[in-house]
């Protein structure tokens, strides 16, 4: 993959991640100016689901980078997109949190404390955001050097925990009978299974290659 291609693809990735935000901001602008129904009958709910689903999708895509590289070594260059995708996932998560703090809790501390202590779906969501926070903070190359690759890797396993917490948050948040979180849950499940399976495959392959070179 040439440098020029990487740059072009990075521009594309930024556009893909920022596009939905631009759409949201544009409709938000419309809804407060000319067309109150631009974000549907329940705009708060629309924004909440938009940012929440965006977070989970980006997290899952970020998590897919490593298994895809293992499976298709030709796509190894994908790793250069992982930080970008992960940071956008955090950005969406921040917007999601802001929606809650502003539009649901109305900046009321007592309402937030009440929600966090009593409602498990909010607790799970906050836990997911808190797990993403150190990952975003340690996303610089400087942090990787400072922590050392091994420690940094260990810390960033938290991405899995955050994605699981996010899915649980989604299931607990929707009402009985609604199955919308199913797709993202299945995809995450496949990714969670892929890691150990791919590792096993790599281990099984390694000795064979060794014996080949010995012969």
């Amino acid at each position: 993959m040439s440098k020029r291609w990487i740059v072009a693809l990075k521009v594309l990735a930024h556009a893909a991640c920022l596009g939905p935000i631009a759409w949201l901001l544009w409709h938000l602008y419309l809804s407060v100016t000319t067309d109150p129904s631009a974000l549907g009958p329940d705009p708060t709910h629309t924004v909440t689901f938009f940012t929440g689903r965006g977070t989970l999708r980006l997290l899952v895509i970020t998590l897919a980078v490593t298994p895809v590289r293992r499976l298709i070594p030709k796509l190894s260059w994908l790793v250069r997109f992982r930080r970008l995708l992960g940071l956008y996932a955090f950005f969406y998560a921040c917007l999601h949190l802001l929606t809650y703090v502003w539009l649901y809790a109305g900046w009321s501390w007592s309402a937030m404390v009440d929600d966090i202590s009593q409602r498990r779906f909010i607790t799970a969501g906050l836990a997911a955001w808190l797990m993403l926070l150190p990952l975003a903070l340690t996303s610089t190359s400087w942090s990787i050097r400072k922590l050392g690759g091994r420690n940094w890797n260990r810390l960033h396993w938290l991405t899995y925990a955050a994605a699981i917490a996010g899915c649980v948050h989604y299931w607990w948040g929707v009402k009985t009978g609604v199955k919308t979180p199913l797709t993202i849950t299945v995809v995450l499940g496949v990714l969670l299974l892929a890691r150990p399976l791919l590792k096993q495959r790599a281990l099984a392959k390694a000795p064979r290659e060794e014996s080949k070179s010995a012969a």
Partner: protein
Amino acid sequence: MLILKKNDIRSSEITPKETFMNRRAFMAGAAATGLGAIAAGRAFAMGSPEQNVADLQKLATVKSPLSTPGLTLTPLQDITHYNNFYEFGVNKDDPAKNAWRLKTRPWSIEVEGLVKQKKTFDIDALLKLKPLEDRVYRFRCVEAWSMVIPWVGYSLSEFINACDPLPSAKYVQFLSLANSKEELLPWNSGISWPYSEGLRMDEAMHPLTLLTFGLYGEVLPNQDGAPVRVVVPWKYGFKSAKSIVKVKFVKDQPPTTWNELAPDEYGFYSNVNPNRDHPRWSQKRERVIGAPIFRQLQPTLMFNGYQDQVAKLYAGMNLMKDY
């Protein structure tokens, strides 16, 4: 096809329903022809002509002192496109897409159980039983959103008196239509059809409890529970059963749909109560449907603002326990 006459038109004079129904039957026929090769269940779920809200018939109404003054009405567009009516699908926009299949004529309500005599009321007779009143009520869904709806109907007590229940009747149960030819009745909703709701007799007899035939001065759009439903303004929306076909007077508390599905989330009483939170979200606040995004949030009122009228029904009860 609808001719708007002056406001004092009697319900007995409204345009014959046949004209209206012919058109709908024609549309259903057209849809069926177009999709003839596809299995019926499949065809049902596909895009269908929405019931045209502008085609609804005007009802003759009188003013009511029981209407709630000083509220901003929710736009008709939102009242008819943001619905929980699981018979027509679990998403908010499903009823607007699918409810056109509902046939509201002929229609009757069967009355049975603890009554002097079993009776069947035809919908057109019910429309003439008492003068129809305009009643603006707050409408609070258990999902923490709210609307303000100008309903049309008369107090359910008028109907109950016409039913002649026995003194032994302590509760009244409402059963909604469950007809797989006209409704989706989704299995994945977890609901065992028909939808059932119920009220204690004194709640049902309260003058605010409305037997409802219309909104915004016209007959109920299908997706809002046509042709007849109840509206209990101080309770969460799911207590207000739609498209009612049977009314039963009973001695014991009847089984009710959402209560059976998740008893810790939805109580039999389900009075609007900002102090008793849903296990998964707060009931202290609500989002006003159709309001601008930064002004959607408002505090929820005890008994949805009808405390003065209804609190006495629950004197001595622990509303945190009997939610």
